C-alpha cells in the first residue's frame, strides 16, 4: 500500500512537466500533489485521512523532500513547469517565488486564514501588501542561557537590554573561569548579527529596498556591540565547524548564552544528562533598550499558480490552518503553530522552555523581502567576520556592506526603474 503510493509519487515526479496532464486514477478524483520537507514531510501524511474524509473526491499525494534540496527543487520545478499543487516553503523564499510569479496569492474568500497570526510572520508572507502564502508553523531565535552560571555571576534574572547583558556576560565569564567564554556567536552564521540589526529602529534597506542602509547610526551601533563581544573576550573567534558539539560545550560552560530556535529545546533535553536539566532556560533576546526583536522563521503553505486544482489546493491550506489541526500537528512533530489560538489548544506554553517563544514571536520583525536578501546577509557576515578579525572598524565595515549590497541589488534597481518589479 505504502509502496504503491511511493511508486505513484515517483511516477508523477517523472512525468515532469505534466502537472496538468497527471491523470487521476479513478474517475472524477482530484489528486493534489503536496511537497513537504524534513520532519513535516515525514509526518504530515497522518493528517491527510481526515482531510480526504471531509473532501470526497480529493486525494493528497504527499511527497517528502529533504530540506537541503528543497529550494533548488522548487526553482527547477518552476523552470521545468512541474511544480506541485501545494508546497511547504521556507518563509524566507516568499520574495523569490513571488518575483518569478510562481505563487497564487490568497484569494479574498481565504482572507480569514490570515487572522489569528503573529504580525511579523504574516508580514514575511506579504509582498506589496498582498499575502502570497499562508503561515503554517513558526519559529524564531531567542536566548538559551545557563541559569546556574548567571546566578553565580550575580544575576537572578536574564538580562533585558544590551548594557545589562554585557555586564551579565562579564559576570558569567568570571563565574565560568578558565578559558571559558560567555556567548557563542559562530563567525560563519549571519543570524546573530542580523538579530542585533533588526533590533534597531532604522530599516536595513532603503529606497524601496534597492540599496543597503547598513551605514545608519543604529546599524553601526549594532556592529560595534557585536565587535565588542569579541574584543572583550566574551565570545570565541570560532566558526560553527570548530564547535563540534554545541550541547556538550554548553554543559561544560565554554559559553553560557546561545542563540537558537525551538529545535534546540529538544536537542538540549535529549542530549544532556537529566542532572544538568535544571541548569538551563530560555529567555527573550535583549535589545538596545529593553527586550528586542529577532527574525521570524518557519514555513508557509504555498499554492502555485500553475495548479489546475486551485479550489482543492486552497481547501487543503484551509484545513492545515485550522487551529485544531495545527494543535494536533504540534503534538505530532512539535512545531510551534502559526495560529495563536492553536497555542492555547495545544497548551504549548505549559512547557516553560517554549513559553518565551510566544513573547519573542510577538516582538519579531520581518526581514526585507527581496530575492537577493540571503546573498546580502551572507556578504554582511563575511564583512563582519573581517571586522571582528581587525580588518575594518564598524564604520568602514558598514560602508563595505552597503557597497556589496548595492552591487547585489543593481538588477533590482534596474527592474524597478523599468517598472518590472515591486
Amino acid at each position, binding site marked *: 500500500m505504502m509502496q504503491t503510493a511511493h511508486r505513484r509519487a515517483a511516477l508523477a515526479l517523472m512525468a515532469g512537466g505534466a502537472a496538468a496532464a497527471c491523470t487521476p486514477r479513478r474517475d472524477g478524483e482530484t489528486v493534489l500533489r503536496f511537497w513537504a520537507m524534513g520532519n513535516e514531510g515525514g509526518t504530515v501524511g497522518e493528517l491527510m485521512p481526515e482531510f480526504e474524509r471531509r473532501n470526497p473526491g480529493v486525494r493528497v499525494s504527499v511527497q517528502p523532500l529533504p530540506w537541503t534540496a528543497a529550494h533548488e527543487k522548487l526553482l527547477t520545478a518552476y*523552470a521545468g513547469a512541474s511544480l506541485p499543487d501545494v508546497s511547504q516553503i521556507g518563509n524566507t523564499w516568499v520574495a523569490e517565488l513571488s518575483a518569478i510569479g510562481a505563487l497564487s496569492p490568497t484569494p479574498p474568500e481565504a482572507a480569514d486564514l490570515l487572522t489569528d497570526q503573529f504580525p511579523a510572520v504574516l508580514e514575511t508572507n506579504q509582498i506589496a501588501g498582498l499575502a502570497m502564502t499562508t503561515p503554517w508553523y513558526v519559529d524564531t531565535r531567542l536566548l538559551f542561557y545557563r541559569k546556574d552560571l548567571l546566578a553565580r555571576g550575580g544575576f537572578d534574572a536574564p538580562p533585558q537590554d544590551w548594557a545589562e547583558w554585557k555586564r551579565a556576560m562579564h559576570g558569567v565569564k568570571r563565574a565560568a573561569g578558565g578559558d571559558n567564554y560567555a556567548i557563542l556567536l559562530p563567525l560563519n552564521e549571519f543570524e546573530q548579527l542580523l538579530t542585533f540589526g533588526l533590533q534597531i529602529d532604522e530599516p536595513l534597506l532603503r529606497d524601496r529596498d534597492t540599496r543597503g542602509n547598513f551605514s545608519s547610526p543604529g546599524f553601526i551601533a549594532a556592529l560595534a556591540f557585536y565587535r565588542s563581544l569579541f574584543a572583550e573576550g566574551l565570545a570565541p573567534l570560532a566558526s560553527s*565547524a570548530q564547535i563540534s558539539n554545541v550541547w556538550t560545550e554548553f554543559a561544560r560552560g565554554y559559553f553560557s548564552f546561545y542563540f537558537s530556535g525551538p529545535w534546540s529545546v529538544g536537542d538540549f533535553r535529549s542530549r544532556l544528562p537529566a542532572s544538568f536539566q535544571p541548569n538551563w532556560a530560555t529567555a527573550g533576546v535583549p535589545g538596545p533598550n529593553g527586550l528586542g526583536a529577532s527574525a521570524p522563521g518557519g514555513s508557509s503553505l504555498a499554492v502555485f499558480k500553475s495548479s489546475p486544482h486551485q479550489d482543492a489546493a486552497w481547501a487543503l491550506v484551509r484545513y492545515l490552518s485550522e487551529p485544531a489541526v495545527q494543535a494536533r500537528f504540534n503534538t505530532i512533530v512539535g512545531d510551534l503553530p502559526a495560529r495563536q489560538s492553536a497555542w492555547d489548544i495545544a497548551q504549548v506554553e505549559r512547557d516553560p522552555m517554549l513559553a518565551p517563544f510566544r513573547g519573542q514571536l510577538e516582538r519579531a520583525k520581518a526581514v526585507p523581502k527581496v530575492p537577493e536578501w540571503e546573498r546580502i546577509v551572507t556578504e554582511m557576515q563575511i564583512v563582519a567576520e573581517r571586522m571582528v578579525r581587525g580588518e575594518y572598524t564598524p564604520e568602514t565595515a558598514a560602508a563595505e556592506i552597503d557597497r556589496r549590497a548595492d552591487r547585489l541589488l543593481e538588477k533590482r534597481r534596474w527592474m524597478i526603474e523599468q517598472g518590472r518589479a515591486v
Partner: protein
Amino acid sequence: MTVVDPTLARVKPSRGRAARERAAWAFVAPAMIAIGLFFALPVIAALLLSLTDFDIYALANLDNLRFVGLQNYERLMTNPLFWGAMKNTLTFAVLGVPLSIAASLAAAVILNARVVKWRPIWRVMFFAPYVTTLVATAVVWRYLLHTRYGVINWGLESIGLPAVDWLGDPSTSIPAILMFVVWKIFGYNMLIFLAVLQTVPDDLYEAARIDGAGPWKQFRHVTLPAIAPTMLLVSIISVASFFQLFAEPYVMTQGGPAQSTVTVLYFMYEEGFKWWNLGSASAVAFVLFLCILAITLVQLAVAKRVGAYQ
C-alpha cells in the same frame, strides 16, 4: 553493387570522388548532427549565456535578461568563494591524481603477476567500486568515516591514535573525501593499465632478467617505458575528472565544513541552481574549461619532452 570496378573509378575520377565524398558525408552526418545538436550548440549557448545576467528575474520573463559583457568573469575574479573553490579543487587534483594513478598501477601490476591466483575474482573485487552506485557507496563511506561509530576511527583508536572527526573538521575533510574517491575510481584505470601490461612482450622481461635486473629495475626500465603513453592518457583523464569533482562532496559534506570541500563544479552548481544565476554559473564553466585545457596542454608538452608520445 558491392565490388567497385577500379577502371570505372579511374575513368571518371572527379565524379567518383564526389560520389564517395557524398557517401562519406551521409555516413558521418548522423553523428555530426548529434554532436552539433547536443554538444556544440549547448556549448555556444552557454558561452552566450555567460555574457548575460540570466537570474531568477530572467527566469520569470526573458525580457529581464541583459547583455553584460565580461562582468560575470570580472566578478568571479574578485569573489573569494570562487578562489576558495579553485584552491580546494587544486588540492583535490594535486593529491588525488598521483594517488589514484599509483593505486591503479599497483593493483594492475599485482594482478598481472604470475604468482597471483584466482585473478578474475581479484579483478572483479577491484573493479566493483567503480561500477557501484556513487550515492550508495558514499553513504557506506560516511558510516566508515563516522567519528564515533566508524570503523576507520575504531582502527585508529585500537592502535593508540586519537579519533579524527573526518567529515566535520575543515582540515581533514579533503583527505577523507580523497580516500573515498581513490577507492571508487582506481578500478577503471587499473583495467586500462592491465590491458597494456599484458601487451608488454615477455622476452623483454627475460632479457632483463638475464642481464641481472631485479624486480624494481625490471619495473623501472621495462614496464614503465612500455606503458608511458597509457600513463599520459590516464593522467589526462584523471586530471579532467578531478577538476570535475562534484558528486562526492555533494553527497558527503554538501561543501562543508566551512566551505572546505566546495569544488569549482560545486560552486558552479550552487551559483546556477541554488541562486539561479545561470549567467555567472556559465562563466564558471568556461573558466573551468580553460583551466583543464591549459593543464592538458602542459601535460602534453611535458610528455613530448620526456618522449612518452610522438
